[in-house]
């Protein structure tokens, strides 16, 4: 028993270490990308058209720390990033961290809302299709799911707006209201973007749930349970679905991770001020510290979610939790 607890702790530690290394590598890449990308931030900042004086450029460089050797810039940046200090926005001198902290929860909220919608729709439909493989019900559900994954999220969003806002007038077409100002309005504005994201995801979760359940249904132990005389309903609920839960939870978790940044189109079309909106704005304004901060936040959220998913996966599955001794 002790060995298995120790084993679980070791597993957690190893996954944690992998995540930290991954985050470090990603941070390094994000830092270096800014030096590979074309365009000099100083010139952009001072306005290349206004033909700034060499002195102004030099002073701006030292002000930004750009006159230091690249390596020392890197370490300073990394050290600061460790303390959640991503520098200041080039446009208004506002700390990047504040922007990130302000927009990150909004993206997370949108992503979670979407994934909950997707899971609530997708998992039951996937199971329903798998349990009646080859039936009309299966064909219909599978076809709907295939259509669902083929409709791009922005078309889904546009259709929703056409129907719920323009035709029925039930929901606002876009915008964001802070929850502290008006709770009801906040969720009304969350509804369409979350649905637009969630419906497409529901289709892909349904497809993957179906194939996971089918895979388990084909295993030898299901036949053995039938031979034991267990009622079919109990075989499904107690054994098949519990086994299928392991891959399904993983799939949902990975989808959630992909939504960090994967929300960009929806955020843009519904004016949802999340992380990707911040990033898109920063990219077009060549606001390097903001780009770095937003990217790092997205990557960190992704890696963290994946870490949680992997840990959940290993805890659910005794074959990983308890390696054969």
């Amino acid at each position, binding site marked *: 028993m002790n060995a298995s607890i120790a084993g679980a702790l070791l597993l957690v530690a190893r996954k944690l270490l992998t995540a930290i290394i*991954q985050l470090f*590598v*990603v941070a390094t*890449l994000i830092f270096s*990308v800014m030096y590979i*990308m*074309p*365009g000099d931030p100083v010139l952009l900042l001072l306005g290349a058209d206004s033909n700034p004086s060499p002195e102004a450029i030099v002073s701006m460089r030292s002000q930004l720390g750009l006159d230091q050797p690249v390596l020392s810039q890197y370490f300073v940046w990394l050290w600061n990033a460790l303390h959640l200090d991503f520098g200041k926005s080039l446009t208004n001198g506002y700390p990047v961290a504040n922007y990130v902290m302000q927009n990150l929860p909004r993206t997370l909220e949108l992503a979670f809302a979407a994934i909950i919608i997707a899971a609530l729709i997708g998992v039951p439909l996937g199971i329903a299709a798998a349990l009646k493989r080859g039936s009309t019900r299966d064909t219909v559900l599978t*076809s709907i799911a*295939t*259509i669902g*994954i*083929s*409709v*791009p*999220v*922005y*078309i889904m969003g*546009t*259709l929703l*707006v*056409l129907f719920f806002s*323009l035709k029925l007038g039930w929901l606002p077409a876009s915008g964001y209201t802070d929850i502290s100002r008006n709770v009801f309005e906040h969720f009304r504005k969350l509804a369409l973007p979350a649905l637009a994201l969630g419906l497409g995801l529901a289709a892909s979760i349904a497809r993957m749930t179906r194939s996971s359940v089918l895979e388990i249904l084909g295993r030898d132990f299901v036949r053995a349970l039938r031979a034991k005389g267990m009622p079919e309903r109990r075989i499904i609920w107690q054994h098949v679905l519990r086994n299928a839960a392991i891959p399904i939870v993983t799939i949902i978790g990975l989808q959630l*991770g*992909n*939504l*960090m*940044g*994967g929300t*960009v*189109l929806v955020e*843009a*079309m519904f004016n949802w001020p999340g992380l*990707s909106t911040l*990033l*898109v704005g920063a*990219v*077009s304004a060549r606001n390097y510290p903001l*780009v770095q901060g937003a*990217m790092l936040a*997205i*990557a960190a959220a*992704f*890696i963290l979610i*994946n870490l949680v998913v992997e840990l959940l996966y290993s805890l659910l599955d005794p074959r990983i939790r308890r390696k054969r001794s």
Partner: protein
Amino acid sequence: MIPEAILRATRNQPSFLASIVLLAAVLFIGVFGNWLAPQDPFLLNPQTVNQGSSAAHWLGTDEFGRDLLSRLLIGVQPTLLVAIGATAIAGVFGTMIGIAGAYGRPLLAFLIMRSVDIMLSFPPILLALLAVGFWESGIFSLAVVIGVLYIPHFARVAHAATLQVSRMEFMEAEHAMGASARRVVFTAILPNILSPLVVQATLTVAAAILLESGLSFLGLGIVPPEPSWGQMIGTARGYLGQNPMYVIWPSLLLALTVLAINVVGDRLRDILDPRLREE
């Protein structure tokens, strides 16, 4: 055996046949769209702004009074070029990397697959956005950017398939007879991992179309006045009230095309997957 199975599928499954016909049509339009367009797709006409269907303009007009049908027809080509170019890039490099990651020396393989993992920790749309945000946008650069972004996905598939093939006894047989690495890769590995790669290629074409149209939708992809479906949808969103059919036509075509690719991909997966075939 596989071509026969595909033929059989076209006979038994109408959705598969319909999808193939649709994709053939899209391909045809992609090549000959410029000649098929009934009117000049770039001709501005202030008199016919945002009209619905009419005898003159079968599918109506856009916000500059241009013929929608003509723009839809010529809008296929850039999308297809980007999608096919991107898939070719992702396929060639992803396969090479994936095989190296499975069959290469342990340290190299480890480094390769870790890098693939790290690249996968960003959603492609976000990286694409960054890339086209910093660089100029165009068919060529879009194809390259999207292609590079899907290399890790391809590499994953090639890697997993190669690992599976590596466990087969015929790989040991090749090594036992002293086959060179080149021979092993080209006669033992590649022909045997082709099936999952073909499926992945169809998925990548669909994903690339979605990615390109998404970028164009945001105004970061195909640059106006050159049309593309995603870009038309993005523009049409501004005129939902005046001319709802403006957004419907390109959306319908785009969704149908992607649907057809997905249906073909699903069928191919069923046909090519040996586990399913033995049943």
